[in-house]
C-alpha cells in the first residue's frame, strides 16, 4: 500500500486530537504502520489546531506535506479552508458546517463568511466535498460533544481510509470514558449512515 495521509483541522477544544488518536489506535489494530502528530500550542482552547495521521509501511515523518492529503477532515469551515494547503484535486474533504467565529471577526464587526463562499473556495482545490450535519447528529446521539465522532463515522463510511470500520469503533470504545461509550458509538453510527446515504 502506498502511504495514506489524513489531515484533521479544527479549533482547540473540538476533539481533533482524540479523533486522530482513535484513527491511530485503529490503524495499529489493523497491523498498519502509522504516525499521528499533534501540536498542542499555547492556548487550552480556541486556537487553530491540526493533527496529522499518516499510514503506510514506509511512513516515518509524522507530518503531511503540502498538497499530499488523501483526506481532509474539517471540524470547522474556516479551519477546513485554512488547511487547503494540504489538499489537491485528489483530496476528499469531509467537513462540518458548524461555525466557530474567530474573535477577530467580532472585533472588526464582520459576519462569518457564508458557507457558499467557503465551499466555492474549497472547490478551487477539490470537488470532492462532503458536508456533514455534525451538530444535529451529535445532539441526536445525546451530546454536542460527540461532533468529532460523527465526523469519524462519516469518514469510515466513505471506505476511502485503509482502516477497518470495526477497528475504528473498537478504538473509539477504548478511548472514550466508559460511561460515554454508548452515545459516542451512536454518534459514530449516525455520521456513518449520513454519509452512506449521501454517497
Amino acid at each position, binding site marked *: 500500500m502506498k502511504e495514506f495521509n489524513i489531515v484533521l483541522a479544527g*479549533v*482547540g477544544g473540538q476533539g481533533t486530537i482524540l479523533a*486522530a*488518536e482513535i484513527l*491511530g*489506535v485503529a*490503524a*495499529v489494530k489493523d497491523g498498519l*504502520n*502509522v*504516525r*499521528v*502528530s*499533534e*501540536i*498542542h*500550542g*499555547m*492556548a*487550552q*482552547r*480556541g*486556537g*487553530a489546531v491540526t493533527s496529522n495521521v499518516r499510514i503506510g509501511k*514506509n*511512513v*516515518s*515523518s*509524522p*507530518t503531511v*506535506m*503540502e*498538497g*499530499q492529503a488523501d483526506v481532509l477532515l474539517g471540524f470547522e469551515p*474556516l*479551519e477546513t*479552508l*485554512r488547511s*487547503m*494547503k494540504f489538499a*489537491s484535486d485528489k483530496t476528499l474533504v469531509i467537513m462540518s458546517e458548524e461555525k*466557530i*467565529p*474567530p*474573535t*477577530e*471577526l*467580532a*472585533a472588526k*464587526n*464582520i*459576519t*462569518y463568511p457564508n458557507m457558499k463562499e467557503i465551499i466555492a*473556495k474549497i472547490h*478551487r*482545490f477539490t470537488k470532492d466535498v462532503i458536508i456533514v450535519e455534525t451538530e444535529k447528529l451529535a445532539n441526536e446521539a445525546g451530546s*454536542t460533544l460527540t461532533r468529532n465522532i460523527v465526523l469519524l463515522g462519516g469518514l469510515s463510511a466513505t471506505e476511502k481510509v485503509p482502516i477497518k470500520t470495526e477497528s475504528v469503533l473498537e*478504538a473509539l470504545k*477504548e*478511548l472514550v470514558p466508559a460511561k460515554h461509550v454508548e452515545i459516542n458509538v451512536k454518534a459514530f453510527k449516525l455520521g456513518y449512515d449520513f454519509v452512506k446515504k449521501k454517497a
Partner: protein
Amino acid sequence: MPNLRELLKDEPKKHVLLLGNEAIVRGILETGIGMVTTYPGTPASEIGDTVSEIAKEAGLYMEYSTNEMVAVEVAAGAANVGVRALTAMKHVGLNVAADAVMTLAYVGVKGGYVIVTADDPECYSSQNEQDNRYYALLSNLPCLEPSDPQEAKDMTKTAIEISEKLELPVLLRTTTRVNHTRGPVTFAKLAKPNLKGQLVRDVKRMVMVPAHARLMHAKLLEKVEKAKGISESSPHNIVTRKGKNQMGLISSSSAYNYAVEAVELLGLDVSILKLGMTHPLPEKMIGQFLRVHKQIVIIEELEPYLETQIKAVAKDYAPNVEVFGKTDKQYFSRKGELSTRLVAAGLAEITGKKLPIDFGKIDEAYAEIANELPSRPPILCAGCSHRASFFVIKKVGGEKTNYPTDIGCYALGIAPPLNVGDLLICMGSGVSAAQGISRATGQPTIAIIGDSTFFHAALPGLVNAVYNDAKITLAVLDNSTTAMTGHQPHPGTGFRGMGTPAEKISIEKVAEGCGVKYVKVVNPFQIKEAGAILKEALQHSGPSVVIFRAPCTLLSVREKRRKGIRTLSYKILDKCTNCTACIKLLGCPALIVENGKVLIDEALCTACGLCASVCPYNAIERGSDQE
C-alpha cells in the same frame, strides 16, 4: 494510550500506539527507575502527567517540583545514593537547571540518571528555539536523540545503562515532533522500581569545593573519553541505508525521518548514517563514513551542531570531502522546524534533481485564499478569570503604566483588545524586570505573574523588590493551577503529583513573609472592588502585591459538569444597541457578531458575567433558570 494503566502491564512484545512522551514513561517502567521529578512544560508535560497517573500503582515516587533546578537537585540526591532517577523538562527548563547540571556532571551519580530535555523547534509553545544539544557539549554529558516513540522508549533504557556505566547523568534530547508524535511501540519486560538508597560518604567526589572540583573535572574528562568508546559501538549510531551514490547523508532526531522520506521522494541512491548518540560523537565511525563518500549532507534541525563537529572530523579523516548543510550556504534553515518538503528542497538544490511535486504551484493556489482568511491565534478561553484581571489592570493602569509579564496563559493578555504585556523574557522575569523599568522610567509598573510561576521563579525577584524598595506592583493572576501545560498541581493547589493532599502554601503569606507591606487578595470578577484595591496598591510607597484569585474556568466548568450542575449562558436583551462595547473591551470568544447583531455563543459561555458587568446599557443578563 486508551488507558494509561495499560502501560503497567508486563506484556513483552505487545504492540501499542504511544505518544512519544508515553513511550518515555514505558521506558521508565522497563528500567526500574524509582524517582521521577519534573516541572511541567510543553512539549514535555505528558511525561510527568503520565507518571503522575500511575506512580502509586507502579511503586515509584514522582513529584512536580517547584522548578526544574529543584527537580534536578532532588533527583540528583536520589541518584547519588544509588536510586535510578529521571527528570523531565522543556528545553528552557534546562536553563533554570543548568547551575545544578553543570556541577552534577563533576559529581556524577551512582544510580542511573536521565535528564529529558524537550526542544521546541518552531517555538510552537515556547519563548525561544534554543538547541539543547549544546548543553551536552557544555557540560560534557552524553546525549541521546530519539527520532520516534519506539526509540524514545528504548533510549530511556540505554541512557540509564550508559549513566551507570560512566556514573554520569545522561541527556535524552527530544523535539516536539518526538514528544507529540504517536507511533507503534513494542513493549519489553517491566523492571521493579527501586526507591531505596544508601549514602556512601565520599567527600572528594561529592562535595565540590575547589580542591575536589579540580580532581573531578579531570575525572569527568576521563569519563568523556570512555563515552566516546560507547558512542563508537552504540547500536543507536548506525548506517540505516546503503546507496551506490557517492553522496552520504548524516542525520539525527526528527530530521532523520524527513531525510529518509526526502531521499525516497527524490529517488536518490544515497547512504544514510543515523546518529542516535550525538554526544560524544562516534568520530571514528563518522570518519569512515566520510572516507567512502565524496559529498556529505548533514540534515539536522536548528543549529549546525553536528555539522561543525563533523567538519572537524573531516579535517582528520577525509579532508577532501565536500560537506553540505547550514553553515556556508544555507541549504537547510537554522530556524524553525524542518519537514520532508524542506529537506527535499535542500537535497534537490544540492543534487540538481527536480522535485516531483510542484510546491510552488500549491503555495500559489493557497496564497489566493489564505490572504483573506481571518486569523485564529491562541486566546484566553471564554470565561477565563485572566480576562477579568486584565480588564481591571488596564482600566486602573491605563496606557501610562508599564506591564512586564511572564510565562503562562496570561501571556495571551497581549492580544487585543486587552493589550497587557510589555516585556516577556523567561519564567519569573516580570517581577524583576519591573524593578528596572520602574527605576528608569519613574512610571507606574505592574508586573504580571501566575500562581505556578510565582512559586517557580518569583521569590528572589520579590525579595529583591522589598529589600531595595522598588516601587512596583506585582499582580499575581492566581487561577489555582498550572493551566497552560494541562492543569498540574503546584504548592498553592493543595495536592501533590501522586494525588495525595497537601497543605496549601499561601501566596499572600509568602509575599508578607518576604516583607511586602501591602498584600491584598481580590476577586477579578468583582471589577469595581478589585479596581479600587489595585489603585490603592499603586499608590503604596513600596512594593505591593495584589492577588487576583479565581479558579481556571476550564476546571470549574469540568467540576460543575461532573456534579451535574448546568451552566446557564448569559443572554443579550432587546435593549442591546449593538454598540459592541463588550467585544471591544473584552474580546471574549463567546461574544460574536452576526449581521450586525451581538450574540452570545451558548456553547462557549461559562456564565462568568464579565460582559454583563461592562455593558454600558445593562443589556446583558444571566439566563433564567428553567430546571
